[in-house]
């Protein structure tokens, strides 16, 4: 029994190590690639080179990277703030004021999670043209303000919030809105953090909707830039790598900064 356990442990470590290396390796390669010439990137040179300055010159010289970075940040931050407010309020309304009709509406909302984004591509594009919001960041932010997944995520977490506290606050005379703002929301900090990471990630990494709705260079976001650079006839792979690093780094920093919240938040929502 002991020996079987030891063997199992060794296999487990070996398996996890392989998975770990496979997962992390492309990150190492993208950072190394940023410092190498285009041809070296393709051939898979695994050591740091001396082309970092040159790649950055190409990236920043040929593309308006600062503006694009600012676009991405602006869209992501506004989307996150909006989504957290709208979705957490909705989840609160569904979880703490349960009525039959509201449960039915909630069911419908959940059902709409199954509607793929691609199915909305055509009508949303036409709507934005009609509203005069094509090529505006406002249009893109507006359509992503209400996220069904994040409503679901919040509601699952709210289930763990003790309802007696709310009853007690009511008895003490607190208004409904105040109960939400100053009692429930602050207590669910981890959930908000996890939802914020998720929302930021989704918005920051979005490709399809920005591709359709933001067609001018002025309005572009980072994924659009990376995609355009790589689809050139002679891609400058070193510069592409620099752009990939630039678009990935903020996510990594945010994730490492808020990692514990993220795991805590997901654990809270999985619990029922």
């Amino acid at each position, binding site marked *: 029994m002991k020996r079987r356990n030891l063997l*199992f442990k060794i296999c487990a*470590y070996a*398996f*996890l190590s392989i*998975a*770990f290396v496979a*997962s992390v390796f*492309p990150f190492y390669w993208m950072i190394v690639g940023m410092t190498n010439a285009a041809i070296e*990137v*393709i051939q*898979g040179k*695994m050591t740091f080179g001396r082309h970092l300055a040159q790649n950055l010159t190409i990236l920043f010289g040929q593309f308006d990277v600062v503006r694009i970075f600012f676009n991405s940040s602006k869209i992501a931050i506004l989307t996150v703030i909006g989504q957290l*407010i*709208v979705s957490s309020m*909705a989840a609160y*309304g569904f979880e703490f*004021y349960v009525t039959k009709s*509201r449960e039915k*509406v909630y069911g419908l*909302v959940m059902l709409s*999670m*199954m*509607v*793929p*984004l*691609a*199915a*909305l*591509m*055509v*009508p949303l594009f036409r*709507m934005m043209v009609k509203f005069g919001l094509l090529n505006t960041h406002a249009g893109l932010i507006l359509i992503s303000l*209400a996220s*069904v997944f994040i409503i679901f995520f919040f509601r699952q977490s709210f289930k763990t919030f003790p309802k007696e506290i709310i009853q007690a606050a009511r008895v003490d*005379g607190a*208004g*409904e809105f105040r109960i939400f703002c100053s009692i429930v929301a602050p207590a669910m900090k981890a959930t908000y953090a996890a939802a914020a990471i998720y929302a930021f*990630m989704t918005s*920051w*990494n979005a*490709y*399809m909707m920005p591709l*359709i709705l933001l067609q001018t260079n002025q309005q572009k976001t*980072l994924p659009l830039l*990376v*995609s*355009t650079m790589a*689809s050139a*006839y002679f891609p400058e792979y070193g510069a592409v790598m620099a752009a*990939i690093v630039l*678009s*990935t780094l903020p*996510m*990594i920093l945010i994730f*490492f900064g808020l990692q514990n919240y993220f*795991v805590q938040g*997901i*654990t809270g929502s999985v*619990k*029922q």
Partner: protein
Amino acid sequence: MLHNPATPPAKTRPPFASFEKSQNRYGWFFASFALLLLGLFMLYPIISSLYMSTISSRGVIQTFVGFGNYLKLLNDPVFLQALQNTFIFFLIQVPIMLLLALVIASLLNDKSLRFRGVFRTGIFLPAVTSLVAYSLLFKMMFSADGFINHGLMALHLIAAPIPWLTEPFWARITVMIAMTWRWTGYNMIFYLSGLQNIPDDLYESAEIDGAGRLQQFRHITVPMLKPILLFTAIMSTIGTLQLFDEPMNFSAMGVSAATIGPGNSLLTMSVYIYNLCFKFMPNFGYASTVAYAIVFLVAVFSVIQFRLAGDKK
């Protein structure tokens, strides 16, 4: 009736029924913003595209065709190709990825394991990359003279470079490998969270009863995680059926490519919708029909998965 501003409505003690009613209103108030937005940007588009799907348009010329588009769909070789590609991804990649995620999660759940945090963080890391970035990363790694081929040849595992991106079979394999890299850690986190809610004594008593690891996995882990397994399966199904970023960025020249992957082997339904609207002469009507095909398939697969899980919630 006007309220005296000095006494807010919550303090006056209304009869029970009207208190319920006013509470009920608050519930709708909290939900109203989301419902309004969802109605405008989700419900309305779904309904309007149902109408659109009965129209055939070539540029500005529009003709009502009724079910014509739906009939056209069933005889459209490009659509059938997209459907086939999607099914291949769905049937092969999703099960492999979910099983892998489950195995990793249950290994990481072992509290006596060292470096758990490091493993967990590293394996989750791919999930923060953008779909565009990782697609391009993998496209570079798997290019004909890229380092995967170089490496495999250096190890004498292959004699000639594998045509990863230029042959339909290998192109699909490459995308599957890439997708597995990107999403396994993501699913693992859900499983890990679920596993933490399974009481340890279940495993302890199973061990005392002499159940091996594999048996514990089959008889405790899998059944206890059923709701989460179902959730990830459905999310992966939805994700696979609307695959877009990867094929767009894997294909030779991205947006300007004539085909998506070698011989359209990576063409998916979402990409086809995009092409119908933004690449060729726009045919919004037919594109809406394809969109409805995706909605239909997502619904069918979700129902099947609910049934297989044998669970109502």
